[in-house]
């Protein structure tokens, strides 16, 4: 009790920190944090691609509403979007699990940011590539699919990873609607034990750091793996 750094509060609750009550109850802790982040990330990848492509559409009637939507979402705090989904979705569509409303909120929010990354990636491809492709008769969809996106996506990797790392950190906001991810688990343990807030919050800070650093390193590895990149 009087130790400088009480390690036992961590070791005693380690499984709970990592996976919550799983497998006897719902997944929680780091497991749920990663689950929320990974699922939202995959969904926002497609969401961002979709919004990004629409926002540079040739047709103003598609482009302007999309841009309006993107700017609207980017102009709102994530916490508010989480509340929105939490209260609005069940009201509209009946019962939806808290986890899923959080995933929806994170996806919507991150898609808006991802869409700007996608646009930047696409616009970063030299004009000569487009001209070369259309001069052989490729349609604009084929151009996008075979020439622009494969090169653009590679350029987007660092920004995507940044966004994913933000997403990992953003999942901590799910704590506010009672989703038992890492931060929520930490407050629970803190409330139960009362005496070790320093230990508990230093521990989860380290966990968040390790997660984020691991994914940043993964991105570096991924970039190097695409062999044609190295030669440029």
């Amino acid at each position: 009790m009087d130790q400088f750094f009480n390690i036992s509060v961590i070791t005693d609750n380690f499984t709970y920190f990592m996976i919550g009550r799983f497998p006897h109850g719902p997944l929680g802790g780091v497991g749920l944090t990663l689950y929320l982040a990974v699922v939202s990330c995959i969904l926002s990848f497609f969401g961002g691609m979709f919004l990004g492509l629409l926002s540079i559409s040739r047709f103003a009637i598609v482009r302007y509403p999309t841009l309006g939507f993107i700017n609207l979402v980017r102009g709102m705090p994530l916490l508010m979007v989480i509340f929105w989904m939490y209260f609005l979705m069940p009201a509209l569509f009946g019962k939806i699990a808290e986890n899923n409303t959080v995933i929806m909120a994170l996806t919507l929010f991150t898609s808006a940011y991802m869409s700007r990354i996608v646009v930047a990636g696409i616009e970063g491809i030299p004009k000569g590539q487009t001209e070369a492709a259309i001069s052989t008769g490729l349609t604009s969809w084929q151009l996008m699919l075979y020439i622009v996106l494969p090169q653009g996506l590679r350029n987007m990797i660092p920004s995507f990873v940044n966004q994913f790392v933000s997403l990992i950190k953003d999942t901590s906001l799910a704590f506010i609607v009672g989703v038992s991810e890492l931060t929520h688990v930490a407050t629970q343990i803190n409330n139960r034990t009362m005496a070790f807030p320093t230990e508990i919050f230093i521990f989860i800070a380290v966990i968040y750091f390790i997660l984020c650093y691991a994914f940043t390193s993964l991105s570096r590895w991924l970039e190097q793996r695409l062999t044609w990149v190295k030669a440029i």
Partner: protein
Amino acid sequence: MIVFKGVHKWFKTLHVLNDINLHVTPGEVLVVCGPSGSGKSTLIRTINQLEPINEGSLIVDGYDLSDKKTDINKLRAEVGFVFQQFNLYPHLSVISNITLAPTKIRNISKKEAEEQAMVLLTRVGLSEKRDAYPSQLSGGQQQRVAIARALAMKPRIMLFDEPTSALDPEMIGEVLAVMKDLALSGMTMVVVTHEMGFAREVAHRVAFMADGIVLEEAHPEDFFMRPQHERAKQFLRQLLTPMQAECP
């Protein structure tokens, strides 16, 4: 095969093409030359509508480019274009650069496309580079791959926009040799170039442009020996003796 009639084009207020009237017949090699900013690149880029024209009529291989209903992708598949900056796809190997369009547009099998691509690579002398990436090739090699890529669509017309201008001097020859070989095979070609040796040897006709106007159109022998227009004389003088032209 290519007919310009009263073609005009403006970039905002700049009149880049001013009343162009040109006729290229099948199998003909037309070289377009002129000082920079004269509109020759814009001219060649209108032929596959990389630049749309504003006025006049332009008919290429039966496709009317002034008609909005013309399927421009179809025309582009029939017209090969070679760029100054090569514009190979850096994420694809040499062989994939060449087979992409034929497999996606002509719907031929990958195997067949690769066989045809190897024939073309052999023709441009690069069959051993099939699996290399563009960044591993020299400029001259990249340009030869770009020519093979354009030829893979079996085009009826080939356009070259300053194909040797971005190359080191020692690599120009290898690209010109491929182009000459192509011209001798009877390909219809329009070539924007400063390579007057090539023009003299291979062209059937030379068009000289300045300020968006075709000032002179002549057989190469006539153009080089007896240029009519003052601008053409000046251009040729500068080209042949650049040092003296700069320091009179």
